């Protein structure tokens, strides 16, 4: 069953066509990679799915419901969480608080309960701190729960962003270049982490430039170039697809 499907999704910025009629689907439980040269429109697709920008045309279905035009916080509540290409943690807040931001949409305490610190609110606060600690533990940052997010090493910030996204209890996790800027060891750990995420029955859709990484963690790969989806298939199929090779390596002159 497809958890996410895009149909002829289109977005233009002024005269630039960033995404031109992309149609594809993501199988539930899969790890799907979205690759393509810089400027191919990958991040735009992510922004369209998460509601950060509105499509000009086309449809987005998540678990069978259209999510086109919904604001990001509504989409998060429906079960799509994301990380950012350039890390967007709440730099000045602690690691725990960052993860608590993900818990927000699963909490219910409102203004009055917060203002008066009602018993239900306190109970929820305690439970949610445990929830957040579980996610910190899941990504291996337990001991750093008090650390200011901005002070963490780069790789840890990336993992904290994933923990924060996981705290929203997503069905689909969207990672924008999760291995970007990571060293070899950190990339290796990230691979393990994604395997663990998958075990939790969370579908993963990721953009990544590290081909070794993509080929080793993804079941399916989508390739974009100039806003168009030029290929999709298993990593092996993609590696041997002449169009993909052309997009990445260019065409020989005498061809």
């Amino acid at each position, binding site marked *: 069953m497809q958890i996410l499907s895009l149909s002829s999704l289109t977005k233009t910025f002024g005269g630039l066509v960033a995404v031109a009629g992309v149609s594809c689907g993501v199988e539930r439980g899969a790890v799907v990679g979205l690759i393509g040269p810089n400027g191919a429109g990958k991040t735009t697709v992510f922004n369209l799915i998460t509601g950060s920008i509105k499509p000009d045309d086309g449809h987005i279905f998540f678990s069978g419901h259209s999510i086109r035009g919904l604001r990001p916080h509504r989409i998060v509540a429906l079960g799509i969480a994301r990380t*950012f290409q350039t890390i967007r943690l709440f730099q000045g807040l602690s690691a725990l*608080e960052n993860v608590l931001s993900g818990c*927000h949409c699963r909490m219910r*305490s409102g203004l009055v309960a*917060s203002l008066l610190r009602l018993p239900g609110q306190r109970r929820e606060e305690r*439970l949610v*701190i445990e929830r957040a600690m579980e996610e910190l533990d899941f990504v291996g940052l337990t001991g750093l729960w008090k650390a200011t997010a901005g002070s963490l090493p780069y790789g840890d910030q990336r993992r904290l962003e994933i923990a924060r996204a996981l705290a929203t209890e997503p069905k689909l996790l969207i990672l924008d270049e999760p291995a970007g800027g990571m060293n070899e060891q950190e990339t290796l750990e990230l691979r393990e982490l994604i395997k*663990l995420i998958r075990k939790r029955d969370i579908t993963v859709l990721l953009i990544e430039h590290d081909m070794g990484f993509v080929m080793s963690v993804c079941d399916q790969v989508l390739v974009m170039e100039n806003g168009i989806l030029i290929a999709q298939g298993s990593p092996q199929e993609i590696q041997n697809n002449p169009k993909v090779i052309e997009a990445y390596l260019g065409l020989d002159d005498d061809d």
Partner: protein
Amino acid sequence: MTQNNGPPNGPPASAPAKDLARGPALNQTNQVNHLANNLANNLAPELNGSKTNPILAILTGLGLLIFAFLPMILAALVGRSTPYWLDVINTVGLYTILALSLNVILGHAGMFHMGHAAFFAIGAYSTAILNLTYGWSIMATMPVAALAAGLVALILAWPIIHLRGDYLLIVTIGIVEIVRIALTNNIFGLTGGSNGLVGIARPSLFGFRITSPKHFFYFIWIVVGLTFLLFHWLENSRFGRALKFIKEDTVAAENMGVNTSRYKLMAFVVGAAWAGLAGTIFASRMRTISPESFVFSESVLLFTIVILGGKGSQKGVLLGSFLVIGLPEFFRGFEDKRLLVFGAALVVMMIFRPQGLLPSKQARYKLPPAWADRLAHLPKPEANGSNGPGPQNSVAPKKGP
């Protein structure tokens, strides 16, 4: 290279947390502890560290005690000018309530709002009109004043809440001017024009009429305490955190599931409603109100208090009120140069201490005992340690005060 050269947290643990105590791990003792801790934190919010510093706690308690008997102490010290000094302190208290309410908007949510006097005015006029025209008792008008201010804030802020930074600032300045001009023009024939409204009644609580500066001292400062407590709770809740996320990074907050425009609007309405409530106190204390009391410079004064004290820090706001409102009373001779001094002080602050005199600190969280226990057994605790209240995580190196 198989060593983890990152920080000492090892590779991602294998989905380990699930079996940890999740459910109702809170027994009676725990709850009592929690309550006691709450209470301690609220009485002395600056001390809510891992372990409450006993000396500081005693000092704070002593300070509160002295403050509670201030009218008597003043009487002994300054004799006949006691009412004057109490009046000054009451004014500081009133501004503290107002600045604390502005702090929700400006400090917690990070919205540049320089029109707070407008909502203060709406509260004061609501009380005055209901009391003078319809004969309501002052205390009965208080919730209505808050609601009226909140409602007006809701209507006015709705279309502008998405504005950022200085754009919002400009519009809020417009709001305070419009309200002042409306009041001056005797809108609906209710506000008495530029003469204002005269003869507002005194409030009475449980049959006790609040009249003298001494009465108002207790009345106002109890409301200050209440405001402090409620907004402290608000700050450390789902609601308050949402505002913090918005202030830090609105885009990220929205993408983590926070309805940013709704929370900004709610923060605005809560702050405005509280200013309206302060308006009730103001009206019944002065007995006469006129548009002059709610001019733009009042808004600037409140803005200054929050910025000077430390955006988002309630203690900072309290200090700011004493400095901005109380201090000039000691320098009566310079009164007309007061704004100049504030201007200079703000410039200096922005250069040397942009976060304010008493900036807000990292929020502290109490871990459930199971987690505190686990952290205590981690190979190497982090530099900033853990701050659970239990004695079990005494591994944490204590931070200096």
